């Protein structure tokens, strides 16, 4: 297979991509607010601190080892010679960023990865909300930032074998969102459902989020962050010109908007009311889904991607909870894994240029499900065997704010309906 070369960046493209990268923390703030708002009030401070903590952990681990294994196109890498072809499978950089020219534009992919790994690390917090220990979140993030994320990031972005096949994932629908979403699925399986979520007959009960305003504010921030994520990713990994940033911003916004409206229409038709938290999830799902092909699809295709992503979120959330007993308070599995996989799939046939690399997209999806999911589950399962990840029963009853932090997020907040003691 042909080695992947690093795109030649003009000064304008490089400066613009740096500006875009600096917007990515807004996406992290948005996701953190959404996770906090969709959780219970007695875990709000814990949720926000967990988000900050996992970003810190991810950044340090990525600095230490992750960046070396991720690498970037044109840099040293290990390749397997199979059937007369070289399969580039992992970066061969030096640990602790040694040997990387931090004073030049060539380190932009590393900076993008540093921001992206923090975003990916926040996603599982939505799945494990209300019951995941603080220390366990950080330990799980070490595995994500040190192994799972860099491995797939190298394959898709770092000149690895998926990139050699023509796999397209400009904004990280697979590398960031699906990797984070599949880790969230593994965490929900390992932790089990929250106490009181399912009755003895297995029927789920509604445990609504405590603050819809936080959730919706998070959507605004996520929008801003995604404009940066998609713009920078497209320039750095797809090699598009800086002028394509307009198309990318249009696609990103149209997909998010059509996904949110799709959810609003479906929930209105099915339940008689528009569901605010599901609309918020739909908005983010639209952002996630278009990330893969933001630079290669036309605006009409972005609308289709968003409409389908919104519908997928509604039915996926319901299916996971009602039929598969997956307790995912933040909707991370549906929003990030399901919508991300849809976005990767759609980026092939809906690509405006050429027939589209849809076989490579299918191979990427198969890799995420067949390699990354078992890997992240296995690593977190082992971690859980060494040190249980779920908080003690008393912690869940008392709330993680008091139990792990010693103080609540809302000291004057009165509890009128203690859902833990209802059954």
């Amino acid at each position, binding site marked *: 297979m042909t080695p992947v070369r690093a795109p030649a960046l003009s000064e304008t493209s490089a400066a613009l991509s740096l500006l875009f990268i600096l917007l990515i923390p807004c996406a992290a703030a948005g996701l953190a607010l959404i996770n906090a708002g969709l959780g219970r009030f007695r875990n709000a401070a814990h949720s926000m601190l967990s988000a900050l903590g996992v970003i810190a952990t991810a950044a340090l681990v990525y600095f230490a080892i992750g960046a070396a294994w991720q690498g970037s196109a044109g840099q040293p890498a290990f390749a397997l010679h199979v059937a007369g072809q070289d399969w580039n499978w992992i970066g061969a950089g030096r640990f602790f960023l040694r040997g990387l020219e931090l004073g030049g534009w060539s380190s932009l992919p590393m900076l993008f990865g540093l921001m992206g790994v923090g975003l990916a690390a926040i996603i599982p917090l939505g799945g494990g909300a209300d019951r995941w220990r603080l220390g366990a979140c950080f330990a799980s993030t070490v595995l994500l930032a040190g192994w799972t994320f860099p491995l797939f990031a190298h394959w898709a972005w770092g000149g690895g074998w998926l990139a050699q*096949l023509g796999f397209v994932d400009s904004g990280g629908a697979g590398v960031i969102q699906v990797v984070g979403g599949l880790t969230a699925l593994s965490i929900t399986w390992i932790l089990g459902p929250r106490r009181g979520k399912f009755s003895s007959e297995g029927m789920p009960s509604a445990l609504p989020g405590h603050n819809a305003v936080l959730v919706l504010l998070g959507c605004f921030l996520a929008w801003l962050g995604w404009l940066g994520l998609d713009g920078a990713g497209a320039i750095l990994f797809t090699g598009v010109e800086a002028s394509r940033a307009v198309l990318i911003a249009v696609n990103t916004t149209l997909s998010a908007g059509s996904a949110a409206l799709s959810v609003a229409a479906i929930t209105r038709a099915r339940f008689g009311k528009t569901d605010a938290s599901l609309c918020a999830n739909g908005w983010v799902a639209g952002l996630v889904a278009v990330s893969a092909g933001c630079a290669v699809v036309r605006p009409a295709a972005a609308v289709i991607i968003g409409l389908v992503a919104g519908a997928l979120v509604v039915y996926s959330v319901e299916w996971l909870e009602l039929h598969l*007993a*997956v307790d995912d308070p933040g909707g991370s599995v549906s929003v990030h894994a399901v919508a991300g996989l849809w976005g990767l799939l759609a980026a092939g046939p809906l690509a405006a240029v050429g027939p589209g690399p849809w*076989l490579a997209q*299918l*191979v990427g999806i198969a890799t995420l*499900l*067949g390699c990354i999911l078992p890997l992240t589950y296995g690593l977190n399962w082992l971690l859980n065997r060494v040190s249980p990840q779920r908080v003690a029963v008393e912690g869940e009853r008392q709330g993680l704010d008091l139990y792990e932090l010693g103080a609540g997020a809302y000291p004057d907040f009165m509890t009128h309906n203690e859902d833990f003691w209802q059954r």
Partner: protein
Amino acid sequence: MKLTGFLLLAGGWIIVLAAMVLLPSGASQISFVLLALGVEALGLTLVFRAHLIPGRERR
């Protein structure tokens, strides 16, 4: 059941890799990739079911 499910997931991925390495690009390669995705879907179903049963027993 859980282990079988994960083995099927990994097996599906190995089929994909084998198809990309051994087969010439064309219909046969596409067929094998689609077949592998079917194997992975079966594995995912088993893993979901495996997590469903102990969960209900625990409750």
